[in-house]
């Protein structure tokens, strides 16, 4: 698997080259959010806003009202937790094209509860006019800027940084799920970095004769996936959702709402953070401890199928684990 470094940093500079209306605002996390290249290349389009996120989000709304497209960069938690009222009134209500690029979703940081965005999708999904995107690999990091740009209103992006694998060879598309495997026994729907776990599990499931359809979802709002729902409806064991987010209000909830509204009476197992806060530890530890890795997924499959799985550890391999310290990011966070 190809591993890339600081994908967003380079992509932002090249993508924004001929877009004078694209501005970047940052709240003292410029290199941490890989916006340093943009800052140095286009200093007239970069604005330092300090550790003052409430002002930054309402300010971004003012820029957007006058025809600019601000790409706000900071850690996710400081966007939706600190500036919710400002996003609601100065961005979402007027449906202004402010693009919020939020970093450090869930387990991707050992920075503890202060830094781990756990309920960002749940919170922002409740806002009318909001679009929510989440990337799962380097390819999607490269594609997401243009997809967000093409949406005429506000967009929140759950972004990845540092060292990233390239999992997908085809471009990300707005509102479209990626179907990664076929099957009518079971459906797995995953998002973000959890898809890598689902793909590892796929090998074990195939080896155990469970025909599994795996879907990767990168547009979380709007959430219209008739193909997935059809697949769930005809499945033998129902669906398991897997997300790096609280199970309250995220991917699993989106599926539950759609299944209930369409009367799809199949079992739904929501794997994600089970209504708890996280704490500071490595990604690998957190994913295992809080049940969002391949092993948790295989455990859930055993539960819903009633079958004991045989797993060849060599066959499923290891997921990519970025080093805590590397030249791909300025701090260990």
């Amino acid at each position, binding site marked *: 698997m190809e591993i890339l470094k600081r994908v967003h940093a380079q992509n932002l500079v090249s993508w924004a080259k001929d877009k004078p209306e694209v501005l970047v605002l940052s709240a003292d996390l410029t290199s941490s959010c890989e916006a340093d290249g943009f800052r140095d290349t286009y200093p007239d389009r970069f604005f330092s806003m300090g550790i*003052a996120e*409430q*002002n930054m989000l309402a*300010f971004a*709304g*003012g820029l957007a009202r*006058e025809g600019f497209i601000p790409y706000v960069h900071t850690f996710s938690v400081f966007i939706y937790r600190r500036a919710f*009222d400002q996003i609601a009134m*100065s961005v979402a209500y*007027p449906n202004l094209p402010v693009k919020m690029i939020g970093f450090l979703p869930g387990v991707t940081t050992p920075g503890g509860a202060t830094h781990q965005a756990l309920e960002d999708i749940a919170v922002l999904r409740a806002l009318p006019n909001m679009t929510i995107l989440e990337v799962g690999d380097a390819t999607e990091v490269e594609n997401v800027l243009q997809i967000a740009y093409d949406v005429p209103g506000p967009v929140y992006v759950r972004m990845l940084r540092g060292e990233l694998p390239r999992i997908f060879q085809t471009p990300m598309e707005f509102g479209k799920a990626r179907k990664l495997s076929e099957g009518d026994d079971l459906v797995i729907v995953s998002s973000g970095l959890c898809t890598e776990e689902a793909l590892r599990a796929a090998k074990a499931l195939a080896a155990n004769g469970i025909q599994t359809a795996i879907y990767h979802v990168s547009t979380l709002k709007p959430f219209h996936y008739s193909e997935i729902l059809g697949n769930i409806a005809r499945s033998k064991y129902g669906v398991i959702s897997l997300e790096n987010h609280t199970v309250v209000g995220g991917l699993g909830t989106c599926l539950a709402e759609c299944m209930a509204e369409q009367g799809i009476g199949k079992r739904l197992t929501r794997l994600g953070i089970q209504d708890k806060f996280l704490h500071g530890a490595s990604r690998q530890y957190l994913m295992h401890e809080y049940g969002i890795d391949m092993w948790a997924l295989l455990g859930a499959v055993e539960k819903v199928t009633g079958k004991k799985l045989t797993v060849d550890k060599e066959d499923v391999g290891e997921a990519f684990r970025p080093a805590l310290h590397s030249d791909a990011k300025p701090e260990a966070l």
Partner: protein
Amino acid sequence: MEFDAKWASEVEGLADGIRLRVLEHTLSQKGGYLCQACSSAEIFAALYHGLLNLPKLDSPLSPDPWRGVPGPDNPAHTGIKFNSNGLPGYDRFILSPAQYALVLYAALVEAHRMDEKGMLDYNRDGSSVEMIGAEHSPGMEATTGSLGQGISHASGIALALRLKKQTGKVVVFLSDGECESGEFWEAVQTASFHRLDNMLLIIDRNGCQCDGAMESVMNIEPFEARFRAFGCECVRIPGHDPLTLAKAVQMPHRSKPLAVICDTDPCHGLEFLRARRPKFHYVRFADDQEWLETKARYEALAKERER
């Protein structure tokens, strides 16, 4: 426009008209933000009588019908047509405390920018002339009223105008209570840091907020020293004097935003309100008797004005 004694007396006449209209609607609605009109009528009158650089209108405009909240299939629309209509070179006006919407509507009528009949839509279901206005309301250019937020949004507009090389100012009307908020000071700090000298902040320092007298709720003094410490030019003036206000807003403020603190009186022009101290935030009537007495006062004032 010459800001002379004749102009000042015209402003005072408009200000009396604003108070009277707000009183009229406070009576018809059996309650309203009347003290805000008393404290700010001269400020609004002066702004709409020449301090704001706005294009002339051939005739007063009518409020738009309510067109629904903004969404993917319903583009946002604002009340900016009553002001600059977004024309380059003219000023923008952001009313930060949307609770003052009725004062703004009254000012638009007095300044012949809004048809008087538009006031019939005030606080009527399905109209854009809302009690606490939003961006679709006449004269409003943003959805403010979550206090402390208007200045941030206005700062973004000010930076955008500078990037577009447009010369108009962004004039923000603020209430003093909202200057207690953290976001307000974040915005002042940021506007100073980015040298937004196309920003003019006008603060109605009437000393009142929802819970009562401001000194009983939170302290914001020394107010002008705080502004200066945050990098603004600041001047503090008696807020009912149009000539002093005209002079203040023309103060040079190179590379810095300008804040004009207007010390005002929440009962100015309607002395009978003084008995309500310290509850000036929202005027309602204790009983029919009080309503009738107030109505009689209104009629007397209206009669006097006709002469």
